[in-house]
């Protein structure tokens, strides 16, 4: 049973990007209500806390709690809000949709969040590849300035705010909070040592909050319809609100789907309102539930699998960016792991030893196995390398993300790895498809 969409309510409508259609749909009324209706920043933060909204970027940290980490006394420093629109996690494409189709929804949430943070300058760090998204967003910002929703003394409330679109230039790691901050400062996007955390010392040495696009969209709705309304959506109060799921891979109808947090994985894959089952009637072999960094699940594990923070944590994986990548029975798991390892090897920033040296090593060994040059000891070696890289021994979580697909695929498909090593090839998967083209 599909519920009424919240975040995607306006997506697909004609001129959904334009401010006039947004206003006609009641847009910026929430901003007016909050800014001119006697709300204090503290009350806004409290409302967001009460809603149970957890960050939609990957880590799932409670948004209101994060805002609360900004020191009361900022010692004369401004507070910055950064919208993380660097959507780069393989399998994830929800923020692109939100920005390209309904930019004002995000912008209203961003201004509301800025008000709560007493922040007068915010940036949208949008990945470089989103040329179109950046243009749509810039147009929306220009419209918002024209209509007085941005700039000096917004709606006569005395609150002023400026938003700037800042384009990245091709680096996955800039989706990591402190990598993003470094990049915004005009540096290489190498994550920082923590502590201090960004809420205390962030961009330009000032307290900084980084929130994901979808999170900011949710803020709009929390304040529009109330924390209680938001908290009631979803499986429970710790996994609340509407959620966007990015479904891709071997399903009949991939796409971005909105559902209350905690949608069953099987419903997403097979439901008529969602994926409508596996392409060509093949069977599910594995599912990556939260983007490339999340541990793979087997077909057995997707039974009774609520797609939310705690549901996936219980399966030793994670919701991450809610990118559900479905692989059918014809998929070579070694090939898939090699592809993911290549991604992480290419995107490691290179500062921490285990990650800089470990990610290419994993990729090389996997490539060898995939190419039919695997050795008996390779599978164990992959596990050892991974264990040496992980468990938080690096500056950021990238290394832990990089090993998740390797360890989970080996753990769950060990026989297939063995088969690959012993028989020097695999007869299924995209590699076989490439060979068919080149034959």
């Amino acid at each position, binding site marked *: 049973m599909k519920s009424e969409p919240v975040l995607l309510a306006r997506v697909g409508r004609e001129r959904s990007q334009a401010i006039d259609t947004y206003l006609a749909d009641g847009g910026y009324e929430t901003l007016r209500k909050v800014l001119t209706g006697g709300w204090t920043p503290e009350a806004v933060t409290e409302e967001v806390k009460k809603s149970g909204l957890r960050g939609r970027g990957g880590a799932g940290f409670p948004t209101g709690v994060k805002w609360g980490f900004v020191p009361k006394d900022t010692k004369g420093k401004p507070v910055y809000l950064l919208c993380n629109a660097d959507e780069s996690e393989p399998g994830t494409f929800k923020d692109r949709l939100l920005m390209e189709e309904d930019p004002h929804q995000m912008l209203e949430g961003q201004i509301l969040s800025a008000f709560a943070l007493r922040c007068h300058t915010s940036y949208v760090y949008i990945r470089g590849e989103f040329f179109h998204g950046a243009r749509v967003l810039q147009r929306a910002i220009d419209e918002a300035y024209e209509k007085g929703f941005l700039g000096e003394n917004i709606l006569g409330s005395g609150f002023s705010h400026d938003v700037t679109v800042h384009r990245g230039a091709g680096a996955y790691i800039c989706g990591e909070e402190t990598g993003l901050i470094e990049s915004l400062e005009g540096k290489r996007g190498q994550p920082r*040592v923590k502590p201090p955390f960004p809420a205390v010392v962030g961009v330009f040495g000032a307290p900084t909050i980084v929130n994901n696009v979808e999170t900011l969209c949710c803020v709009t709705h929390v304040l529009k319809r109330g924390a209680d309304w938001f908290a009631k959506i979803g499986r429970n109060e710790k996994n609340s609100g509407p959620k966007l799921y990015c479904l891709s891979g071997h399903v009949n109808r991939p796409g971005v789907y909105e559902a209350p947090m905690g949608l069953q994985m099987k419903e997403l894959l097979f439901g008529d309102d969602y994926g409508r089952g596996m392409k060509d009637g093949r069977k599910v072999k594995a599912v990556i539930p939260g983007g490339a960094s999340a541990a793979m699940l087997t077909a057995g594990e997707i039974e009774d699998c609520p797609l939310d923070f705690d549901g996936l944590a219980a399966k030793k994986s994670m919701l991450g960016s809610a990118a559900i990548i479905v692989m059918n029975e014809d998929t070579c798991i070694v090939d898939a792991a090699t592809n993911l390892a290549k991604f992480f090897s290419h995107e490691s920033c290179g500062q921490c030893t285990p990650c800089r040296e470990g990610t290419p090593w994993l990729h090389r060994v996997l490539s060898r196995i995939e190419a039919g040059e695997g050795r008996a000891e390779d599978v164990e070696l992959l596990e050892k390398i991974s264990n040496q890289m992980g468990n938080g*021994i690096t500056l950021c979580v990238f290394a832990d993300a990089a090993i998740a697909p390797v360890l989970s695929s080996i753990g769950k498909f060990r026989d297939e790895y063995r088969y690959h090593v012993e028989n020097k090839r695999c007869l299924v998967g995209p590699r076989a498809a490439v060979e068919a083209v080149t034959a």
Partner: protein
Amino acid sequence: MSAPAPPAPAAPPPPKKDTLTIVFDGKPIEVPPGINLIEAAKLAGIEIPHFCFHPRLSVVGQCRMCLVEIEGIPKIQAACTTPIKDGLAVKTTTQKVRESRAANMEFLLINHPLDCPICDQAGECKLQDNAFGYGEQRSRYDERKRQYAGYDRTAIGPHVVADMTRCIQCTRCIRFCQEIAGTGELTFLDRGGRTLVWTHDGKPLANDWSACAADVCPVGALTTKEFRFRRRVWDLKKTPSVCPGCNIGCNISIEDRDSVVYRFLPRLNPAVNDYWLCDYGRFLSESLNAREISKATVREGSDVRDAIVPAAVERIASEIRSTIETDGPSAIFFLGSAHLSNEENFLLRKIADHIGCGNRDVVVDRSRVRRMKSKTEWIEGDHAGANYAGARDMGLSPGPGGHGLTDVLEGRWIPQIVVVADASFAAAADDAEKVGRLRGARFLAVAARTANSLTRAADVVLPAASLAQKEGSFTNVQGRVQWFQRAFLPPPPARAHWELLLLLGVALGWGDRNWTPAAVRTQIREEVEGYDEVTEQELAGGGLMKKGLFVSTGAV
């Protein structure tokens, strides 16, 4: 009835501790606040292996070698980035720590060429040391190693040669150029496993301290052109000394083998040069090997004959004695040097005093301004001699009614005898006009190691020692008195300047041939204002500011 007891005085607040207690492997130690955990461990006698951490560079936490366990934190932590606080309990020897270090070593070595047999860093390589101390015997890496083709064996500046394939991406060199030199020539290029250190578009790494980038490099990725392939470092003997390059007086180690100086390295002194040394001073090391005056010579008419040193000294003494008889002591001129030690300049002045001569001076040999960053401030030097301040302190200025060097050079006064205590460095020594003025004297005596116009003009030349061949003390531009030790003996018959001066003093009836520089320092302590607290212990411990004579150079 007695009056009610006065209220008990409030319990005094607990004394505010100005140190923190850190417990290393169960052993508590008091450390000053603000210290890095790696340095705190060092105070406790515990080595936490590391690569990217450097006490004077920003903490980046990148190499992940300094992993330790902290009580109360489940995850293993990098010591360098762990905020220090009172009561912190650190475990450095657990199995988890050992395994993590070994794992990190394996990662560092998989792409390292392991070309230690042809690498100049071998023997002072942190990678080698830590591999030995914390690594496993075998690597499981069996893939092709990374190579940075075109970035090896390449000079990236006038002094520094890069072998990027050896680099472990610790960024110390980058941070040195950014944070200490302030020139920022180096950067990371590319990213991930392809990250390398280079300059923009191959521009030279050329700043006044560029070789420090090689010093801070923990591996053989940056080495100096001058030292490359010259000696295995374990063959070299280190002797504490002071840089002869200018009056900042940077602390150095002279490294020699078989009486040949191979290099200078900076020797830590936070108050002066900290961990650094400028390229100019550093590469003066080779000049210490020059030896052009290897025996004493005496001019007899138009002939220059070899002589034994005592005979040559006696010749000077006899000239002085006869001049005193004919023209009095004021016809004699003693020229000290900013390149000579306090002890030597003191001896020269005492000889002048002994014969009652007030004509004494040092050469004012200004150089371009050189800059050095101490732990807290920039220091500027502007004299070519390391001991200009000390030479003046020892009294080498014209006495009352006496003449100075400018009187001679400007032709206002022609002495009968000129004694130049060190001709090797004097700026005047190759200036024909100035030499001509000095040569205007009836008799000219010099001590020297290298030949120049002045030595060629002299009547008596005494073979003198290099900096490496003698001990003594210099007083720098801050007024800090610093000790330099002898690395090796001068080749006979050459002798330290102080020995030559003592021979002369004894020949003139003053002093004791058995005196050592330490004995001379005892006299300096007694006689020279501000030097009374400069004890031998203080000298051995990094030098001491002269009392009341501190000259702040100010932060730059």
